[in-house]
């Protein structure tokens, strides 16, 4: 029996924080690729500490719904899941290349496949592009558009910037958008000065965050100048200093994220059948208008 456990941050304050986790779990559940799909949280229930004891299967894949390697994926989750003998060297990662480690979770005295975070998987690049398609309503968006991928800078976590750059570079290589830039919240190039970094009249701004919350709904919209105060809301697109900014909100809410979760599990050995194709198909942006 094959089980998927999606672990995410969750929130004590924001009721919407768990929504993307639940949504992607539902998408994956509908594919039938796993006998069960469970969710566990740091700030909600079931907690990381107790989620594994709710799991019935014997082939267990744990996928962190986090954007980068760092404190949560390297310390908190392995500790709270009680992965016996965990050491970050198990992943042998350069900050982007964590794939999986198979360890016994002491909580259930059973092996689990502990996967790298979704945010650094190569398939995440496609989700960022898909997010741009979603927010513009154009499955062919690219020509005449710039794309900004934004996240925390190195101040919070040096791997956070690595993940942003990695995906921005990969998208740039595709020559789909006129310009692609990595921008940061707490270091240069800062997202506050977005119009200075783009020549294009239209720029899609995709924050590399899992859930919408304080950063994506308050911080970034105000910093970029989409609104004076987040409570006013903003239009998509909003023109700021001559640049039309298409603000996408957290990339983690994009339905195609379910694909990255599946990719992580597949990389760790999960048997998925046609689930990957199914998810790519069912989460597509409709063509035309």
């Amino acid at each position, binding site marked *: 029996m094959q089980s998927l456990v999606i672990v995410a941050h969750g929130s*004590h304050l924001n009721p919407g924080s768990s929504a993307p986790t639940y949504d992607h779990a*539902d998408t994956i559940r509908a594919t039938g690729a796993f006998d069960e799909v469970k969710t566990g949280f740091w700030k*909600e229930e079931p907690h990381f500490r107790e989620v594994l004891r709710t799991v019935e299967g014997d082939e267990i894949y744990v996928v962190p719904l986090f954007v980068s390697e760092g404190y949560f994926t390297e310390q*908190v989750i392995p500790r709270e899941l009680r992965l016996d003998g965990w050491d970050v060297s198990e992943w042998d990662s350069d900050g982007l290349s964590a794939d999986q480690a198979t360890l016994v979770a002491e909580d259930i005295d059973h092996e689990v496949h502990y996967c790298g975070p979704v945010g650094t998987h190569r398939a995440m690049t496609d989700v960022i592009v898909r997010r741009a398609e979603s927010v513009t309503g154009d499955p062919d968006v690219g020509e005449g558009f710039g794309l900004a991928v934004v996240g925390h800078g190195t101040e919070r976590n040096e791997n956070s910037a690595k993940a942003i750059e990695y995906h921005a570079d990969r998208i740039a290589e595709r020559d789909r958008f006129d310009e692609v830039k990595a921008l940061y919240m707490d270091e240069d190039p800062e997202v506050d000065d977005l119009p200075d970094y783009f020549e294009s009249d239209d720029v899609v701004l995709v924050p590399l965050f899992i859930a919408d919350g304080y950063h994506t709904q308050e911080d970034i919209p105000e910093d970029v100048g989409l609104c004076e105060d987040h409570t006013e809301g903003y239009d998509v697109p909003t023109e700021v200093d001559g640049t039309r900014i298409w603000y996408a909100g957290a990339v983690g809410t994009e339905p195609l994220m379910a694909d990255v979760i599946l990719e992580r599990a597949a990389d760790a050995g999960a048997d998925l059948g046609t689930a990957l194709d199914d998810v790519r198909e069912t989460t597509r942006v409709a063509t035309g208008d």
Partner: protein
Amino acid sequence: MPEPTSDATADEGAAADDDTETAPEVPSIDLPSDAFDAVLDALDGRDPNDPLRFEGFSVARDDGGYVLDPADGDRQTGVSERELHEALDERAPAVTDWYAFERVVGEFGPRRAFLRWLEDADGATVATRYAALAEGIERAWGELKITATVTDRGERRYDVRHADDAGVPVDELDRYDDPLDARELVKLDEKGRYRPLKTAPTLAGGWVFPDLGPRDAYEAVETVYPATVANWHREREGELDVSHWRETMERQSGIYGVVKTWDRGEGHEHVDWVAEACCDDSQCLKRREWEYDDETDLNVDGGDGAFPCREPCSVVVSAARKWTRLESERPRTYEFDLTPSEKEQVEDIIDAVADGRIDEIREADTKEGANRYRTRFLRAKRFDDEGNLGGVPTEPAETGDEE
């Protein structure tokens, strides 16, 4: 576990008792083909010396057919499949009971234990349970009321709803059939406020899962109260892994690493206060099993909940982080005047907030110290323009600086 043969005797004995008039009637059950097929399937290839046991009898396979033991008091061999079907149909309650737990519910420990507990399957006979299920067996789990029933095919069905909605007709409630829909039902309390703690006694009502199968009933309960069944099951098995306050705080890192500094080797009064604040039954339905450490109990009651709390939760850890900072302050003496009624009013306000009574205090009920007009009057009278109670600055230096 009841012995199958002695149960059969017990049943016969019970039938002769004077109580039979008052005992509820065992419903008539038709043996469904899936249950019969499952029996054949289980017997297929099974060692003849290892019969399949049902309550009151067993079935094995032998060369020429099946062995039924006992049948009319004796072991009967050479039973054909058709005869076996007839015999099992006559014993449909026991067969469907086996099918329900061995094939539908399955082995997974927490689910199996919970669903068996609901109908006391490890204590009561099939006849007793089926009679009770025909009437509906009700169980409480936190604020949930779960009613188990049985169909005329021996299938278990479950009605899961808020205990406050007991007795409300299904069509007067919002009906759900997918247990995962419970994720939305538990998100907000009845005033629309986010519930960060799913075991807080603030579950909103007005909904019902009126007709769930066993697995979905378990899922619904585990969605409303995650991991509570798993922990309850471990506790019943004597395997609950309790992590006490000290070890839980020692484990914390990052912004929560500071909490361990709150334990200063000067007793655990501060943890008593935490437990009184957060873990009381009025705040959380879990029964607190963790203590200060494995040798030192807290001086606060752990509560009466059905399911255990095995370690300080993330809400407690987050709050403790705040208290660790606040409690590092040293007390000071502030001097200002209050009338005796004003002192009591301050106490009333603290009580009203702590007990979540603010919304119950009527607008014009000025007898209540925490009444809004009373409180606004107190503020108007006792606060200065900077919001200082009694006109006394919080930091003595503030006055000095300003002067």
